[in-house]
């Protein structure tokens, strides 16, 4: 069989990955640098019997995507900075109502309209804390076009498995660069589909059956008439003011993440074994970090990379261990300091944590990262 090799953009790979995972519904609003995701979805979804709709704004985009998900369709919305801000209220809705949904944010320079065509990694903390209240968060960040494909598939799988919105945080560089990728054959990657109610059993919409991770999800129209609300609700799905119930339900939702860290957390390590300094990075910045490491090694400085693939939940256990191994951790990210605070929180002074970053629309260069490493050593 001839291999299916294609030259494509990160944003196109996102749509290809989504379709591979079974996406059948997309709703969104155009915004640079994410627009190609909407365009490609508009082109391809109807060819597989799926639906695309351009809504009147990003709030409506995520709202319609949630509506689509409730009818049993795998659903996605994509945006960039300003649109991500607009989506925040309904991200919280998807979390409390336990809606499987993929939300892509192709990060660009902010705040506000900022630098629409420039890359940034400015929504690392917004992804975690952007919607109000405590809530479970899963966010992934790819570094390459192929990884954008794979992580989109994974985002759908995790959304379906944990019944929660999953965020894919790419950026202008990864979204717009073109790389050759081999599209996996059908069946090559595992695809997870949400569990549906068991036939013949009374359906308890927000109750977890013994042995299940999350409540089973009935599609609207399938014959299980139930209620979905953004208010705290009990197992029946109907609102409840009981503080005991709210505590129980939120705890159950938080545990989707807390109890499954090994399943959720992915990272890559590059030349860390013999390294004397650890560079910590993710997304497009990790590409520059890798080049920096190669250059530093040519100069005799043994640097290595820890690249977070899962942004949330944070790879706390592994980063703690790195702090024992290294005196110096250099965090390289395209902002003025976001993920670095999480590293510092976990390292708790066991290693010296430094930051290299910027937020002026320029990319982070290998030379800048290498210079920071030399400065701290």
């Amino acid at each position, binding site marked *: 069989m001839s291999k299916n090799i294609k030259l494509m953009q990160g944003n196109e790979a996102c749509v290809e990955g989504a379709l591979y995972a079974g996406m059948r519904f997309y709703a969104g609003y155009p915004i640079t640098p994410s627009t190609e995701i909407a365009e490609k979805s508009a082109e391809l979804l109807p060819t597989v019997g799926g*639906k695309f709709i351009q809504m009147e704004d990003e709030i*409506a985009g995520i*709202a*319609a*995507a949630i*509506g689509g998900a409730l009818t049993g369709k795998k659903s996605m919305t994509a945006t960039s900075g300003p649109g991500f801000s607009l989506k925040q209220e309904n991200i919280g809705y998807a979390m409390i109502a336990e809606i499987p949904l993929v939300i892509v944010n192709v990060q660009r320079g902010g705040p506000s309209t900022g630098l629409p065509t420039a890359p940034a990694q400015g929504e690392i903390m917004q992804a975690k804390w952007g919607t109000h209240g405590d809530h479970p968060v899963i966010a992934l960040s790819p570094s390459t076009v192929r990884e954008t494909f794979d992580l989109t598939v994974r985002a759908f799988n995790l959304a379906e498995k944990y019944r929660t919105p999953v965020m894919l945080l790419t950026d202008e560089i990864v979204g717009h660069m073109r790389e050759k990728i081999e599209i996996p054959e059908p069946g090559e990657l595992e695809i997870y589909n949400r569990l549906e109610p068991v036939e013949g059993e009374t359906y308890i919409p927000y109750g977890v059956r013994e042995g299940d991770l999350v409540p089973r999800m009935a599609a609207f129209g399938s014959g299980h*008439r139930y*209620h979905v609300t953004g208010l705290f609700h009990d197992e029946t799905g109907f609102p409840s003011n009981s503080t005991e119930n709210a505590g129980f339900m939120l705890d159950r939702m938080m545990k989707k993440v807390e109890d499954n860290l090994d399943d959720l957390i992915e990272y890559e390590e590059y030349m860390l074994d013999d390294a004397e300094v650890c560079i910590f990075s993710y997304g497009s910045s990790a590409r520059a970090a890798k080049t920096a490491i190669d250059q530093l090694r040519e100069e005799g400085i043994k640097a290595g990379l820890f690249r977070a693939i899962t942004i949330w939940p944070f790879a706390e256990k592994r980063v703690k261990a790195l702090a024992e191994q290294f005196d110096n951790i250099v965090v390289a990210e395209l902002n003025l300091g976001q993920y670095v605070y999480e590293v510092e929180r976990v390292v708790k002074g066991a290693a010296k944590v430094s930051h290299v970053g910027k937020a002026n629309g320029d990319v982070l260069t290998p030379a800048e990262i290498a210079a920071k490493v030399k400065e701290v050593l």
Partner: protein
Amino acid sequence: MNNPIVEKYFRMDNLPHIWCPGCGNGIIMLALAKAIDSLGLDKDKVCVVSGIGCSSRAPGYLDFNTLHTTHGRALAFATGVKLANPELEVIVISGDGDASAIGGNHLIHAARRNIGITTIVFNNNIYGMTGGQYSPTTPNGDLGTTAPHGNIDRPFDIAQLAAAAGATYAARSTVYHANQMEKMIETAIAHKGFSMVEVISTCPTYYGRKNKKGSAANMIAFLKDSFIDVKVAEKLPEEKKAGKFLMGEFKKEEGVVEYTVAYESIIERLKK
């Protein structure tokens, strides 16, 4: 209560409802259930979507696929439901604030698309749930907790707004005219395309009390005396129309292609 309609369509375990005595919401909810019954719809294929507000609590009491969303966004969620599964009969319940303030943009765009959703606006001329602030339909000069010196805003005519934006069915009734309202809701649901039924409701607790409108019964009597059907109004001399409000069917346009039907035809075309 052994009203067969209530028993068939209401979630009896969730009653009594949270609404105040004299609130008009219950009248509209019952009329909706009756209209659905007259149409003989399959309960499994009906989806009722709402936003946030007193009125938006209605879906919790109705035994269908029900979706209580965020403030103002019911039509956006409903658009996703309807497009993803056009087999469903999608009905949106929304307050005047929910539908025309925070949700105003979604309202005009859903109407413009002519997507097959029926929207029932429970218009009590005030923000009920948050305690009596003025809404986009509070009459000029009236009082609200945020209009303590009289409202200087000019009100929306929601039914006409929807019609102008492209709704192919737009009508208005009141909670006094329950039979007519029920018929309108029935027509609206059967209509192929975006349909709007605005129902003037009563909020004795906030709008009524703030504006000295008397008891709930007085407020309902006011609706009886002040609303005249557009068809009747056409034949009345000007002096008889002074101080009256219009109700009835403002727009009924058949044959405009419905949004999800248009989308299905793209899918069919691409199969060839």
